[in-house]
């Protein structure tokens, strides 16, 4: 046990220090600790939001439009999408098609795909007005770039990311839209688009005109035009063959390199290269080489396994990182490569 005298001396000294500091602290209450210039704590994250389904209406045959209401929602740029967490827990991406400046609601439209992966069926059959849905994002993988002119080729529900782009293009910018669909009645927003674009819009309904003649319609595409395509796989393949520089947005993840297959990871600092098989994770592969790699939840929410990306494109599957963080880092427990190869700083 410490001697009584020591205790008295320490307590006395502490009281003197306290007295001396009290005056100084009263003058400026936050003295004397410096502050971090860009504080980390309390920074709003673009994490899950719970939004109210304020309206649900059928805007074309088989197409339901949802308006999701909230408060102070993050703004978004045309082309952005939202992750919707459906009641069953399925997560699906839907392009935003409302007004980017509206911070009180988000609008998405979805088509019922009978033989799809179940997401659209759930939206159509189980989402009702008055329900709450969890959403994440918005994020933009299909941004509107600056270009002298624009060509948009869309199939059916692929119009959703393009509609806000058309609205956002400054007047006088030359653009064209080829809008294909099965029947006119199944094509959402047709009226608004024809009014907006006039003769810049070519509507091709399959039951009346057959498939769009892309070669004919796009023969006079100007040099330097930004070409956008959003639609079914067939249309995307046709456009990729004609315009290697085309900007794409797919309905369903691209199956060859969407992160479901195997890919290669180079760990640059440790000078190793490894292969991540289709049924395994980056974390598992890395741990086989570097057993002391930190991780914890293995489900993409705790953030322990975050690593810096040096090269390559990532399919982010976590629920934590902000857009800024996603630009140069990933959670290796769940996220995968979109490209054939990733280079990590580890």
């Amino acid at each position, binding site marked *: 046990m410490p001697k009584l005298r020591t205790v008295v001396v320490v307590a006395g000294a502490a009281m003197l220090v306290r007295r001396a500091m009290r005056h100084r602290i009263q003058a400026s209450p936050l003295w004397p600790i410096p502050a971090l210039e860009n504080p980390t*704590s*309390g920074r709003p994250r673009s994490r899950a939001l719970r939004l109210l389904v304020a309206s649900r209406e059928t805007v074309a045959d088989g197409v339901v439009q949802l308006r999701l209401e909230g408060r102070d929602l993050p703004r978004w740029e045309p082309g952005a999408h939202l992750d919707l967490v459906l009641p069953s*827990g399925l997560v699906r991406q839907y392009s935003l098609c409302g007004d980017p400046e509206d911070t009180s609601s988000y609008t998405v439209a979805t088509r019922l795909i009978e033989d799809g992966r179940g997401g659209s069926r759930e939206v159509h059959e189980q989402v009702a007005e008055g329900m709450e849905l969890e959403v994440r994002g918005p994020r933009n993988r299909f941004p509107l770039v600056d270009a002298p002119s624009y060509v948009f080729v869309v199939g059916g529900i692929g119009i959703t990311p393009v509609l806000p782009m058309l609205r956002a293009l400054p007047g006088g910018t030359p653009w064209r839209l080829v809008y294909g669909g099965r029947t006119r009645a199944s094509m959402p927003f047709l009226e608004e688009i024809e009014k907006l674009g006039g003769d810049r819009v070519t509507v091709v309904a399959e039951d009346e005109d057959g498939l769009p003649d892309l070669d004919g319609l796009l023969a006079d595409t100007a040099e330097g035009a930004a070409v956008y395509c959003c639609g079914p796989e067939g249309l995307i393949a046709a456009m990729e063959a004609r315009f290697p520089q085309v900007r794409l947005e797919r309905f369903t993840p691209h199956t060859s390199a969407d992160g479901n297959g195997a890919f290669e990871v180079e760990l640059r600092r440790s000078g190793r290269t490894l292969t991540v098989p289709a049924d395994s994770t980056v974390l598992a592969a890395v741990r086989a080489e570097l057993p002391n790699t930190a991780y914890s939840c293995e489900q993409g929410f705790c953030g322990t396994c975050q690593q810096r990306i040096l090269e390559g494109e990532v399919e982010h599957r976590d629920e934590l990182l902000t857009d800024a963080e996603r630009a140069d880092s990933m959670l290796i427990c769940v996220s995968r490569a979109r490209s054939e190869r990733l280079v990590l700083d580890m």
Partner: protein
Amino acid sequence: MSNTQASERVALKARKVSFSWEETPLHWVPGDPFTTHTINVLHLLLPAGERWFVHVYKQVLPYIRDDRLREDVIGFIGQEAMHSQAHDEVLPHLRELGLDPTPYTAQVDWFFEKLLGDRTLPPGRARRWWLMERVAIIAAIEHYTAFLGNWVLNAGELDRRGADPTMLDLLRWHGAEEVEHRSVAFDLFMHVDGSYRRRVRTWATAFAAIVFLWQRGARFFMENDPTLIDGKASFKDLYVRGRRGTLPTTGDMIKSIPRYLSHSYHPSQEGSTEQAVAYLASSPAAIAALAAEKGAA
């Protein structure tokens, strides 16, 4: 040696909880701003503090030569990361209620990220010493988080006074996980270093820092609370709330000191794992997290 004994073993895992704060009032212990703000200091210290735990523990993983301990540390890291995020999410809500915590949290961020960061000492032996010192500081802090966790699980007075259920669930979920993993930090410290002198030294550092930051945070909140005129925090308030049961009693706080410094200390002697696990089985947030996990699987 009695202070390396194994406690009742539970596999530690991070629970993916979420809380919504829209309904929580500024004084979530009705009519008692002092208790509210004294507990609110947790939201100021923990986001940066627990992020720092994770940061330090990631670096200490290579020093662990025991697979079970490594597993526990990994579970601990995930739980701490979630605690940090959960408390962090209260901060924007406080700002909405007119009590902006940023001037204070920016300092706490500096404290943990710069002062207690990796570069405080030069590379080489000094830096390794610094890593061990920080591991020991965390063990000392965890003695207090387990103390507080155990307290909040048993603080029936907060319920009787109608405290906000969401906030109580956050505190008790967190408290229960702190009790659940209370041995990990100490076991890790004993495993990688374990020197008694270091234990005493780092306890003194951690205790002084906690007392300093806590009273400062409570004053900060009381002075900046938009609904209080001339809000003040004093030691007397703390003593009175302790008697009342809405904060830990002063006596218990003092008695916890010699326990940590005892040669035969082991965290398993504090609090009850059964109670913690039982709370986690009934916590609304933890149940929702479990349901979401099952739904996704």
